[in-house]
């Protein structure tokens, strides 16, 4: 088994050790991720059935809200965090061709995150944490839920440290050389997660846990929402970041071509970082505790996040076009048919780009300072983030899994044909599910409601056809998810060996040996983030000590 191109420089035994380290950390983390995914999928199906009013036997408010909370936590926190840790460890070890500085440290982080997940799952599955994954106080779940979530985040901080330390060690050993693109992406992802998770961590550690332990009697709900908004948009880019990394560094080789531009990928990574966190107020546009001027300021930054996405769209489409042309595609659109549609990573990228385009248009409405009022807290929002996260992001997680499983297990992919069908059914199922959600959101249905009683029969009649369509989409998604997990298990148990276990990343058309220091290091951007955060969140947080509004007592639910 060999590791990237510099194999000559590394003694054989060390290369084997490296591969084993990457495979174990990669597989352990990713199995937790996709195991949680498998657990959360039937809950999604149940929720759609419950709120559709089509199945009287499924009606249960308690079960519905417990299910929504668990589905949200498993998909948004557990699937993402463990997948990103696993992919990041695998990428760091292979792309740098160097061992982690301390495997014990990495496994400690994994253990803490797993313990946290178990604690939170206990609270959720016993119905004692039906507070949604956004857990807005003063409504409170039981203590193990918050301790669990906090431990999950603390565990992930070990990974954050690992990514940054790995890059520092490599840079010291390779002065002046460009950090491999995949590693630069993961170091930026780690830094982004460190920054963006801090808001919710402050909220849980200094507001919620002291309240639950009885150290304080009251809580400032406006501050809690402000702190959570600090986390709420950046976290979405934390989820999306590895999907972009896969499009840039994994897909081009799989598509049989080269990356259109290495430098612009780095620029996109840097912008994705800097414009992801200090813009969270678009979640608070309709809130009373922040002034309009701050909301306007955050609006400017919110639209800036379109820039790295549009750069990514261009670079990825350029890469796909070159793959089609290399395979004989001619003319303005002749290359489209010649892309490697039967290659999972290529197909996932094409489908992800499609969903990202539609989701992006929806995002413009959400980001709008005034138009947000039309859709805030409606089912439109659920439709939007399922398209961007469940669609664009998770379909790339699938693609990474199909790429990584044979590498990590040494077993051949159980069926490429089934994998391709799985990706198609997922993308089509996601569009059929989220399309009606956008529409019923515009028609006025709030998100997170277990019944439609509020609007009476006339309005409900207009919603019913959409309810029926979303049922079809959700069944399709469930089948697709079962197929995905089956392919992973069948690959892991496949008696047939993988044709190759060599890990290699895409090279660019103009592969740079050196890049400007700003696109090769983290320090400047870390300080820039600090400055931007002080500007955009400094006063809005400090004001709570100036206003000194009467606080809330805690409530159960």
């Amino acid at each position, binding site marked *: 088994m060999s590791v990237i191109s510099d194999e000559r420089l590394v003694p054989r035994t060390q290369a084997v050790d490296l591969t084993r380290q990457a495979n174990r950390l990669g597989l352990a983390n990713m199995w937790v991720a996709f195991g949680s995914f498998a657990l959360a999928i039937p809950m999604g199906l149940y929720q759609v059935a419950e709120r559709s009013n089509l199945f009287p036997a499924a009606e249960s408010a*308690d079960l519905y809200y417990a299910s929504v909370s668990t589905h949200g936590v498993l998909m948004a926190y557990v699937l993402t965090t463990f997948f990103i840790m696993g992919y990041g460890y695998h990428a760091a070890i292979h792309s740098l061709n160097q061992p982690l500085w301390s495997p014990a440290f990495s496994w400690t982080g994994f253990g803490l995150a797993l313990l946290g997940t178990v604690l939170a799952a206990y609270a959720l599955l016993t119905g004692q944490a039906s507070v*949604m994954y956004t857990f*807005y*106080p003063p*409504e409170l779940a039981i203590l193990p839920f918050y301790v669990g979530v906090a431990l999950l985040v603390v565990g992930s901080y070990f990974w954050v440290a690992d990514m940054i330390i790995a890059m520092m060690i490599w840079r010291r050993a390779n002065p002046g050389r460009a950090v491999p693109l995949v590693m630069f992406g993961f170091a930026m992802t780690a830094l982004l997660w460190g920054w963006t998770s801090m808001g919710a961590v402050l909220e849980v550690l200094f507001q919620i846990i002291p309240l639950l332990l009885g150290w304080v009697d009251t809580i*400032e*709900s*406006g501050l809690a*929402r402000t702190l959570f908004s600090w986390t709420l948009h950046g976290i979405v880019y934390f989820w999306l970041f590895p999907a972009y990394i896969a499009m840039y560094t994994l897909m081009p080789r799989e598509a049989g071509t080269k990356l*259109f*531009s290495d*430098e*612009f990928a780095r620029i996109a990574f840097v912008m994705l970082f800097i414009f992801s966190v200090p813009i969270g107020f678009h979640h*608070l546009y309709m*809130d*009373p*505790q*922040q*002034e*309009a001027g701050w*909301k306007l300021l955050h609006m400017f930054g919110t*639209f*800036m996040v*379109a*820039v790295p996405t*549009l*750069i990514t769209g261009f670079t990825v489409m*350029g890469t796909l076009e070159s793959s089609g042309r290399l395979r004989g595609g001619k003319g303005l659109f002749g290359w489209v048919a010649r892309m490697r549609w039967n290659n999972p990573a290529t197909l996932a990228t094409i489908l992800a780009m499609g969903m990202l385009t539609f989701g992006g248009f929806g995002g413009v409405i959400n980001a709008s*300072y*005034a*138009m*947000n*009022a*039309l859709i*805030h*807290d*409606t089912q439109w929002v659920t439709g939007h983030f399922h398209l961007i996260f469940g669609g664009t992001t998770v379909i790339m997680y699938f693609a990474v899994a199909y790429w990584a499983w044979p590498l990590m297990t040494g077993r051949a992919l159980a069926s490429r044909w089934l994998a391709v069908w799985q990706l198609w059914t997922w993308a089509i199922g996601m569009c059929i599910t989220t399309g009606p959600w956008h529409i019923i959101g515009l*028609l*006025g249905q*709030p998100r*997170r*409601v*277990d019944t*439609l*009683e509020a*609007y*009476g029969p006339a*309005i409900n009649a207009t919603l019913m056809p959409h309810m029926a369509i979303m049922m079809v989409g959700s069944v399709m998604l469930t089948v697709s998810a079962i197929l995905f997990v089956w392919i992973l298990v069948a690959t892991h148990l496949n008696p047939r060996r993988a044709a190759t276990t060599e890990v290699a990343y895409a090279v660019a058309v*103009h592969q*740079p040996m*050196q890049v*400007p220091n700003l696109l090769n290091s983290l320090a400047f951007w870390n300080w820039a983030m600090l400055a931007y955060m002080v500007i955009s969140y400094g006063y809005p947080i400090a004001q709570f000590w100036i*206003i000194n*509004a*009467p*606080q*809330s*007592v805690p*409530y159960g*639910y």
Partner: protein
Amino acid sequence: MAFHVDKLEKRWLWIIGALVVMTWVVQIYGAAVTDLHPPSNVEAVDSAQIHLASSGGEFAEDKIGTSRDADGKLVVRMVAARYGFYPQRIDIPQGEEFTLRVVSFDVLHGIYVPGSNLNLMIVPGYASQVTTQLNMLGEVPYVCHEFCGPAHAYMYGVFNVVPKDQFKLAAASAGGQG
């Protein structure tokens, strides 16, 4: 140091720049020219005492509902509490601007009227306020759109929008049942 920028990339960057500036201009136009802002009056209230005269009594039981303030402007005062809005049924003249002021008695709530821009978060400790108008006629449902507990989906009420000439200000009515 090699930094390769393709000719097509340069053009695309100009297009991206133009797109961002365009969206900003639209947003600034909305805010500055049409004076359309999200609800943002940072105004503290004591959620535990909103019903007491000693706290100013703006949201006391006999004050909530539709009324006119000193300069004749229409004001609707509401209290949101699990699981209802008080008053639950509110008379409003069609097409006339009114200011909705609403506070939470307990946890986080929201209020939303489908097909309108009446969309507010109700955060305990703060008075939420928006000035808008309803142009439809008849019974217009409104809902709590932020999860507030297991019976959240049953927290709703009705704006009874009547033609302007038929609108009469009743004595402030007491709260309905949620």
